[in-house]
């Protein structure tokens, strides 16, 4: 059975715009040119189905509304280094190529193909030369001077994945001879592998003029003025060199300029290059000995780049539409809705921030765009895995999600692994993203619309700002807002974002943390790659994959990666609670605590008589579910924080997270462990502001119950009203 996939895709740049500014939409069709309909809408509520508010959108009048004709826009995934116009190589017939390599996917299955280490080979013209691993994974040299004159020499002995080798090719094209050396480096492995050396004749070949030299790929051809590549290498390349008679022609120092896309040639020949599609840098090299874990302290041990055949930074599509956002457009979450016959709609989400310099609404919704991006193009649940054991139910996707499995070039999320099994630590918004939308699986932005819909139902004016704005502009972005509401799962934050939120509280701001598992992972925004985030899943935590040893420090900033709680900034200090448990089958409810009767909390419970809160909701039939946070003084929950309600009676699927247990123990699920709970917390800030935290991702799904007239809605409205009141909070 072939599912009905979307037939038109797109992405936007920039991510957030103010009224009067322009935004570009890159649109491509699938399976040939076709007509599509486009319309920009403000999205108010997601497609919750008949049990909830349902999809609510409001059209934005712009010239884009209507029928268009689009064409496919291909994507060249796979990372490499491109060295343009290496004139010094023209006419070169006698030379030596050398590098240290650690292949990670040998052979490439299920469709074996060569993997290029370095060279000028061009698949389209069959000219040039390259040092490669052949289809079997053995070191080989490929050379040619057109379709009628090609040769390849191989050692015939496949390399072992994840072992370091020194590989050499001594080439004399004029004489028609090549000697290949593949020498495994000594390591701690028990198995011993002999080196391989092969000398063989080649047909004499003329030296070709090289347009470009590549590390980690070869040229496939040029289409529409764009370069396309193939034979991508999976694994690490360290200290690649080209020499002639002992003299350096190129000597690339991959430890230089790690934080950028620059690749520096130390030979003096100025064969500098650029990385393409953001391969992983700041990775351990062939000589890493474990004495240093920080690449900045021992750069000579971090002289490698890890390339992947499915890395992607910028899809590079040609803009299809440029739209000026009307000056009177209100701030909100918007989407370009694309639809072509025969497939479901495709949503290109973007954000309209308030007009610059204009008065702001009193409330800001901080869209969790770093988290949405971390989850973007999530493939993991469609790949074999034991996910059902921690979800507690069958993993569910829709046909738009399935698009990813038919189009690997769209790249993955930070929850995925590359084709070689290593974790995806770079994700970019400069590509079509299938799962940040108001339809499909309820998660992230989909869930956050429950909060926006509730604000609309309350008639509460609000602006929408994004994590990306906050990272870039800091606390100034929040100036003028009395209350900032987070989304339901603001999991990923940069240091700059945390500093800004702390700064907001220090200016008498009021923060409503409307979810669970927030402020958990550190991310950075590489200045060399706008639109991308970097993540290292270091050390500990509930991890989709584990970061490689020795590679815990971000390449872009040098920051130590991983959980904020492992870096002295546990979320408990900012919002009173931190991640403790997750489960995805059925949600539960909160029970009020005696602290909810504290006079300091009276404003929260005016008109709320129930002991049990939120035993209803759209996401698992309860307000306490999916991912849960609890108070913990040892992690920084303020001593005066009031835990006004806690959840209970969670299902077996809810398990205590591993960072909460130093030694694995039984009885750590929701049926046995009282530690598996969400704590609802309130506390005053010394500057006169305050914090309210719900502790559960599912909470926002209870707001709309009974026509927004329920104890969760009332409680939240009570908090919002008091938080809007400029009267300062006093410390108890």
């Amino acid at each position, binding site marked *: 059975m072939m599912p009905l996939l979307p037939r038109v895709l797109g992405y936007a740049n920039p991510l957030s715009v103010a009224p009067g500014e322009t935004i570009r939409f890159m649109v491509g069709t699938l399976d040939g040119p076709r007509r599509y309909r486009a319309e920009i809408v403000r999205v108010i509520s997601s497609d919750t189905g008949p049990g909830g508010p349902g999809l609510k959108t409001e059209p934005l009048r712009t010239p884009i509304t209507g029928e268009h004709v689009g064409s496919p826009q291909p994507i060249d995934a796979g990372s490499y280094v491109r060295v343009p116009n290496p004139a010094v190589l023209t006419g070169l017939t006698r030379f030596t190529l050398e590098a240290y390599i650690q292949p990670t996917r040998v052979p490439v299955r299920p469709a074996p193909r060569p993997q290029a280490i370095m060279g000028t080979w061009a698949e389209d013209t069959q000219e040039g030369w390259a040092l490669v691993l052949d289809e079997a994974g053995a070191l080989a040299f490929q050379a040619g001077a057109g379709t009628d004159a090609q040769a390849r020499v191989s050692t015939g002995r496949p390399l072992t994945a994840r072992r370091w080798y020194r590989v050499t090719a001594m080439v004399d094209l004029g004489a028609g001879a090549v000697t290949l050396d593949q020498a495994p480096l000594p390591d701690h492995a028990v198995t011993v592998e002999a080196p391989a050396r092969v000398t063989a004749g080649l047909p004499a070949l003329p030296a070709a003029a090289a347009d470009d030299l590549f590390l980690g790929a070869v040229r496939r051809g040029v289409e529409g003025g764009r370069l396309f590549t193939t034979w991508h290498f999976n694994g690490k390349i360290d200290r690649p060199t080209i020499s002639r008679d002992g003299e350096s022609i190129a000597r690339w120092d991959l430890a230089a300029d790690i934080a950028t896309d620059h690749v520096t040639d130390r030979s003096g020949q100025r064969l500098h290059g650029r990385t393409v599609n953001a391969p992983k840098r700041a990775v351990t090299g062939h000589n890493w000995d474990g004495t240093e874990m920080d690449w900045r302290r021992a750069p000579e041990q971090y002289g490698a780049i890890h390339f992947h055949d499915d890395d992607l930074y910028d899809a590079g599509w040609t803009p299809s539409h440029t739209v000026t956002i009307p000056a009177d457009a209100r701030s909100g979450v918007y989407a370009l809705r694309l639809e072509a016959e025969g497939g479901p709609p495709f949503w290109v989400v973007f954000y309209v921030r308030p007009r610059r310099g204009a008065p702001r609404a009193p409330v800001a919704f901080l869209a969790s765009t770093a988290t949405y991006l971390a989850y973007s193009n999530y493939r993991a649940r469609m790949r074999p895995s034991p996910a059902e054991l921690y979800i507690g*139910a069958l993993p569910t996707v829709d046909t738009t999600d399935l698009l990813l499995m038919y189009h690997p070039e769209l790249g993955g999320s930070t929850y995925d692994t590359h084709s070689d099994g290593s974790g995806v630590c770079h994700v970019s918004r400069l590509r079509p993203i299938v799962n940040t939308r108001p339809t499909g699986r309820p998660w992230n932005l989909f869930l956050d619309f429950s909060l926006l819909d509730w604000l609309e139902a309350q008639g509460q004016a609000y602006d929408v700002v994004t994590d990306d704005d906050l990272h870039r502009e800091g606390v100034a972005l929040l100036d003028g807002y009395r209350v900032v509401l987070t989304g339901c799962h603001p999991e990923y934050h940069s240091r700059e974002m945390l500093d800004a939120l702390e700064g907001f509280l220090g200016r008498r701001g009021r923060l409503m943390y409307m979810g669970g598992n927030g402020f958990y992972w550190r991310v950075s925004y590489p200045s060399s790659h706008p639109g991308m985030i970097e993540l290292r899943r270091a050390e500990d935590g509930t991890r989709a994959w584990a970061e490689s040893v020795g590679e815990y420090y971000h390449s872009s900033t040098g920051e130590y990666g991983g959980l904020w709680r492992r870096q002295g900034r546990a979320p408990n200090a900012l919002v009173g609670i931190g991640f403790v448990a997750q489960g995805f089958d059925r949600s539960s409810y909160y029970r009020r605590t005696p602290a909810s009767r504290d006079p300091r909390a009276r404003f929260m419970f005016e008109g709320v008589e129930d002991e049990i809160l939120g035993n209803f909701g759209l996401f698992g039939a309860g307000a306490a579910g999916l991912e849960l946070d609890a108070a913990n003084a040892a992690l920084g929950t303020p001593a005066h924080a009031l835990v006004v309600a806690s959840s209970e009676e969670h299902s077996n699927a809810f398990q205590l997270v591993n960072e909460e247990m130093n030694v694995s123990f039984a009885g750590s699920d929701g049926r046995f462990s009282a530690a598996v709970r969400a704590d609802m917390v309130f506390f005053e800030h010394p500057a006169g502001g305050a914090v309210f935290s719900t502790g559960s991702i599912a909470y926002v799904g209870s707001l709309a119950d009974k026509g927004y007239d329920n104890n969760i809605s009332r409680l939240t409205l009570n908090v919002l009203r008091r938080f809007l009141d400029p009267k300062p909070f006093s410390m108890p």
Partner: protein
Amino acid sequence: MFTIDPRRTDLALEFKRCPFGPHSPELQAVLNVLRSARHCQNLLLVCTRPHAEWVLAEKQPDGRPPRLFSDPVFTTLEDAEWHAFRLRWEAVTGEKLAV
């Protein structure tokens, strides 16, 4: 290792009544076996009409797309869970679930 007693159809009925938990410890043990790596059938549920229709699919290795099964078509998530439970029960115990 824990094995499923195929006579314990009461546990199957408990699942049918409440597929999304909480479950009794005995039913959870059964589910752990049915969903474990040893017996994992790599099932995926694909929504083909929002809020209305789902079909089962089997996840594939090497990044290949899941294989979708056009029949049966489920109109509730509960029906899909029950169908998957029955399939796995039979696969693991060798006995058709007679409830």
